[in-house]
């Protein structure tokens, strides 16, 4: 069992999300930063889709009552076991009574804690992911609280390894996010598209798992900001009347009636979700073909060149 001593501002149970439910108005949920999430699971010998924790900016702090392995990835945060600093992006072996604490993130927003075996919460609509607005999945459909207890599936201890330091993502600076223009790019002025591709956009504090709200030069519409409601893809950049972009994430509304100027590529969504309030990002347009080539490269990078055995 895992005992939550302090959940931090928002810690939820996530797996790789529910599929097939968008047509019922239910978003996929799952980790905002899929790459970091998958690596956390692999570090403890789990399948990519085992349920793990997603923390936000700070925490969680928890205690284990049985031997298990954990791994912390995502936001750059100080990690301690019983008060002693320990590395992230590696397999950590715990014994009963050990207390693990994730401190305040120095860069990035979302951290992931995976446990060998994965968290044993009941799947709902085919997934263990928490969808907070829908009170669905995870632990009773809510964020974790102090004194919550979570069960693990029993597995033999995994073989420890670490992600090569050169392969650990850096979440600071001003990332360039690749986007594909459309589906409604034709509803914007040339100057509006120029603004989107030319300037830096700062993350606003009211961003959450539903959407990343940005502030910067306005993306101006050519004719009105409303369309007949249609489906909203992961990474859709919606531009309401005020001209400020909202990048829609894993807990997004499934359909909507605002124009969408472009869509963030799947391999850069996680990076958007790690931009802190006040930090900025830039957009760069690629074609669908280029996006697919970049996706294959990202896939290949995940399979090779990351793994370093620990003696």
């Amino acid at each position, binding site marked *: 069992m895992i005992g939550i001593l302090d959940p931090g501002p928002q810690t939820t149970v996530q797996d790789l999300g529910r*599929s*097939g*439910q*968008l*047509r*019922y*108005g*239910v978003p996929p949920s799952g980790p905002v930063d899929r790459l970091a999430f998958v690596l956390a699971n692999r570090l403890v010998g789990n399948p990519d889709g085992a349920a793990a924790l997603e923390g936000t900016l700070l925490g969680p702090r928890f205690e284990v009552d049985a031997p298990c392995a954990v791994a912390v990835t995502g936001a750059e945060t100080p990690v301690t076991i019983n008060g002693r600093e320990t590395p992230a992006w590696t397999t950590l072996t715990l014994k009963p009574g050990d207390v693990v604490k994730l401190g305040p993130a120095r860069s990035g927003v979302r951290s992931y804690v995976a446990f060998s075996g994965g968290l044993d919460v009941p799947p*709902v*609509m085919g997934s263990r992911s928490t969808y907070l*607005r*829908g*009170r*669905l*999945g995870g632990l009773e*459909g809510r964020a974790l609280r102090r004194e919550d207890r979570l069960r693990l599936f029993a597995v033999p201890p995994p073989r420890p390894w670490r992600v090569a330091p050169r392969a650990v993502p850096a979440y600071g600076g001003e990332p360039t996010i690749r*986007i*594909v*223009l*459309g*589906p*409604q790019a034709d509803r914007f002025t040339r100057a509006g598209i120029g603004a989107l591709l030319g300037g830096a956009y700062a993350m606003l504090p009211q961003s959450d798992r539903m959407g990343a709200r940005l502030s910067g030069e306005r993306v101006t519409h050519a004719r009105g900001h409303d369309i*007949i*409601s*249609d*489906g*909203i*893809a*992961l*990474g*859709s950049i919606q531009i309401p009347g005020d001209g400020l972009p909202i990048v829609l994430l894993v807990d997004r*509304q*499934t*359909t*909507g009636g605002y124009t*969408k100027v472009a*869509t*963030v*590529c*799947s*391999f850069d969504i996680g990076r958007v979700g790690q931009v802190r309030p006040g930090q900025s990002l830039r957009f760069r347009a690629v074609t*669908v*073909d280029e*996006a*697919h080539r*970049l*996706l*294959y490269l990202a*896939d290949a990078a995940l399979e090779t060149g990351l793994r370093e055995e620990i003696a």
Partner: protein
Amino acid sequence: MSVRFLPAGDLAVLVEFDEEISVEVNTRVRALEFLIQQKGLTGVVETVPTFRSLLVYYDPRAVGYDAVCASITELLPQAGTAVLPPSRLVELPCCYDDPALGFELQAAAARLGISTAELVKLHSGAEYLVYFIGFTPGLPYMTGMPERLTIPRLETPRTKTPAGSVGIGGTQCCVYSVESPGGFWVLGRTPLRLYDPESPEPVLLRPGDRVSFRAIDRGEYDTIAARVAARAYAPVIT
């Protein structure tokens, strides 16, 4: 009818039919979705029907953009009413006559210049079609409201509308699936849950369902609500 394919990032393509909201166009959207499910198109992961477009998620590791568009194009000529299976008719009991549930029934009747009895008769006498489910879990976008009930939306939207509220606004009728803000005139409330996260089947309605409202009194509302809470109520679906 012209159909456009619009990229929605590296994992999805939007198949857009005519720029109008109509039963005919929406039927084509749902028929295309049905055909895609039936044929199990290579690489297609998930679909989201709306008024006049279908968002198709695909796995670019299994199929390219041009190939997925080509295989969808091949299905378009068949995408009409004929391929769709018979739709379900779902009955939603609705209590109109308690002002605690239908808090704008009187005001809406006054605004429309008809009696409350006539409003209830018109609203519950119609059969509605679910164009699609979206925005929030289980929320139906429906057509079929009698034209006589066309009404401007509330000038000041309510901050909280209880789940189950049955409202009208513009030419639309809506049933709130979760508590949310709202600009519709609330005529009544159904004791059924359009979205129930604790149920094995959390969402009641599906795209293409037909919906009818049956007027019930407060006593029956409470009885059904209690049975729903005890998971002892089966919705009437034919």
